[in-house]
């Protein structure tokens, strides 16, 4: 990393003492809420499902709070910084997909009607206990890997926005502090504290989003952004399928599946919100209204990324070498947006936005920690035990898993060195689970011919999506090319992560259908639903 560049970033920040005070006050309030609601978490349903008493508007707030986390803001800003306005296609797809699921109740309404707490619990009702355990293991593995970079990326935002030193131990200290904070109140209050902090985050983040976007527009102007993107990226900065685009046709097609349907109907943390709703009708309302939030969670950070690109490329070209071009710093696309915010936001507002972002970070972390740990408890450990686990034992075990997962992501954030975009890393790690889960859930809910062995085959075939993870993809293609004597660079350009994802999805569908037809079940545990009320 360029020493001069590091020094200049630390000097760029306009983060002052008053900003630190605002952040400290906000975090203290969150902690107090987490401690106060501990007394309500007396059963497993209350601890991981808030007693299924969440209304539709609160559902929208908590869904937005979870899905518009700091990691989302960072990877979407990175996409906007690198891909220009063309990155907006993901937001459009996500919004349309969520609206479609909300209007039809596809997957989520029949699941809610079954009153299951987790997706693997549905596997057991439909296919049997062994499918639940297998599904739980795959889900937890993929999910924990998926959140592996959350801590590192969140810490990079704070370092960039507050002007802490990039080199040295600053990043590790921030990662550790954030992790301890999240662990404390997630372990204490479970889903109830998650929902309450999600609500406060929604309110603060909404204010921060509007102020920041308005300032970015007034300080730079969208016309200036157009010129910056046009001159630097050409058509690829506007058309996601243009030649030379960082996206491409296969990427866009895969987003219809990953961002459009999976994001709201299959991804466990989003589904957990639907399963905590008070009724199936509330689920549909929640998702239909959340479609706007799903568009915003992509568009706004991407817009900030484009604004940051314009800021450094055109407004302050003397700083462009730090973030753009051959001499840019490591992870320039990630650091650019927070550094840009620290430059345009006035004192006080900057503190509010950073507090909102830390809140966004916490709300995503608490939901994910709670989700994966409850899957391990409910769907892996509990079904494998001969004697049933008591409620206090389940809550204790879930809390132990929360701490263990926290320790893992701390280590993984320091260890993983893949150069893939954060969004791509998340899609691929997530697809290890959701490729199989999507096919098995749709088949299980809507196709009577789906069988237990078919579900096992589908879940295992879906895990083949791990081949799309950049270090794995590069290793596999390089190995095969070295054996066959082909040009590995040419094949790596052809077999992108999205192509691997689409192939994995096709393979999963084929395996699930063919194996189900070949090995039909003798009796059906659950015959599915239509998704209509």
């Amino acid at each position, binding site marked *: 990393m360029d020493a001069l560049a590091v020094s200049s970033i630390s000097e760029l920040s306009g983060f002052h003492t008053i900003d630190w005070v605002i952040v400290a006050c906000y975090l203290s309030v969150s902690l107090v809420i987490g401690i106060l*609601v501990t*007394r*309500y978490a*007396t*059963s497993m349903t*209350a601890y991981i499902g*808030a*007693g299924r*008493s*969440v*209304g*539709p*508007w*609160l559902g*929208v*707030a908590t869904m*937005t709070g979870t899905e518009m986390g700091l990691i989302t803001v960072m990877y979407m800003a990175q996409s906007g910084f690198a891909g220009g*306005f063309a990155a*907006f296609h993901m*937001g*459009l797809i996500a*919004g349309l997909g969520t609206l479609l699921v909300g209007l039809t109740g596809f997957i989520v309404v029949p699941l809610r009607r079954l009153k299951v707490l987790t997706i693997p619990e549905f596997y057991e009702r439909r296919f049997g206990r062994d499918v639940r355990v297998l599904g739980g293991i795959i889900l937890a593995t993929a999910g924990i890997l998926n959140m592996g970079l959350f801590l590192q990326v969140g810490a990079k935002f704070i370092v960039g926005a507050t002007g802490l030193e990039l080199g040295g131990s600053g990043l590790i200290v921030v990662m550790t502090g954030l992790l301890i904070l999240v662990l404390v109140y997630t372990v204490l209050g479970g889903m*109830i504290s998650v*929902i*309450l902090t999600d*609500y406060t985050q*929604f*309110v603060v983040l*909404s204010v921060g*989003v*509007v102020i920041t*976007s308005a300032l970015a527009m007034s300080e730079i102007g*969208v016309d200036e952004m*157009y*010129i910056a993107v*046009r*001159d630097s990226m*050409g*058509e690829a*900065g*506007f*058309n996601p399928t243009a030649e030379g685009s960082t996206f491409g046709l296969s990427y866009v097609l895969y987003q219809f599946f990953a961002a459009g349907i999976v994001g709201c109907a299959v991804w466990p943390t989003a589904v957990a919100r639907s399963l905590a709703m008070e009724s199936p009708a509330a689920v549909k309302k929640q998702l239909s*209204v959340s479609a*706007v*939030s799903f*568009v*915003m969670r992509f*568009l*706004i950070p991407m*817009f900030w990324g484009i604004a940051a690109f314009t800021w450094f490329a055109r407004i302050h070209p003397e700083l462009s070498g730090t973030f753009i071009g051959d001499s840019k710093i490591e992870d320039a696309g990630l650091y650019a947006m927070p550094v840009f915010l620290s430059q345009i936001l006035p004192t006080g507002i900057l503190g509010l936005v950073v507090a909102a972002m830390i809140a966004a970070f916490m709300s995503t972390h608490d939901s994910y920690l709670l989700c994966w740990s409850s899957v391990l408890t409910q769907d892996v450990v509990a079904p494998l035990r001969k004697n049933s686990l008591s409620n206090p034992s389940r809550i204790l075990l879930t809390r132990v898993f929360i701490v263990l997962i926290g320790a893992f992501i701390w280590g993984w954030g320091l260890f993983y060195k893949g150069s893939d975009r954060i969004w791509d890393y998340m899609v691929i790690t997530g697809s290890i689970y959701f490729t199989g889960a999507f096919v098995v859930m749709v088949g299980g809910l809507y196709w009577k011919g789906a069988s237990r062995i078919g579900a096992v085959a589908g879940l295992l075939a879906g895990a083949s999506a791990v081949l799309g993870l950049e270090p794995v993809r590069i290793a596999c293609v390089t190995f095969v090319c070295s054996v066959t004597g082909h040009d590995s660079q040419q094949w790596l350009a052809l077999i992108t992560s999205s192509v691997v994802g689409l192939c994995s999805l096709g393979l999963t569908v084929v395996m699930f259908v063919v194996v189900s037809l070949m090995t039909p079940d003798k009796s059906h545990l659950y015959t599915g639903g239509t998704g209509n009320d």
Partner: protein
Amino acid sequence: MISPPDEYQAWFTFWVNLLYGSLSLFVLVALVVTVKGWQEIKVMLSRLKEDADEQNAIQD
């Protein structure tokens, strides 16, 4: 420097309109969610309190 032709203006207009439209809708939704969500929090907590009291009564 001669600027390239503005052949991407249609794309740009589409994306920026999407951004403005979504932002406007989001502001509306945020206002409603803030007010209605607060009312629902009060209902949720009272229900959870009743459940917790029941659980405690059973344990006693």
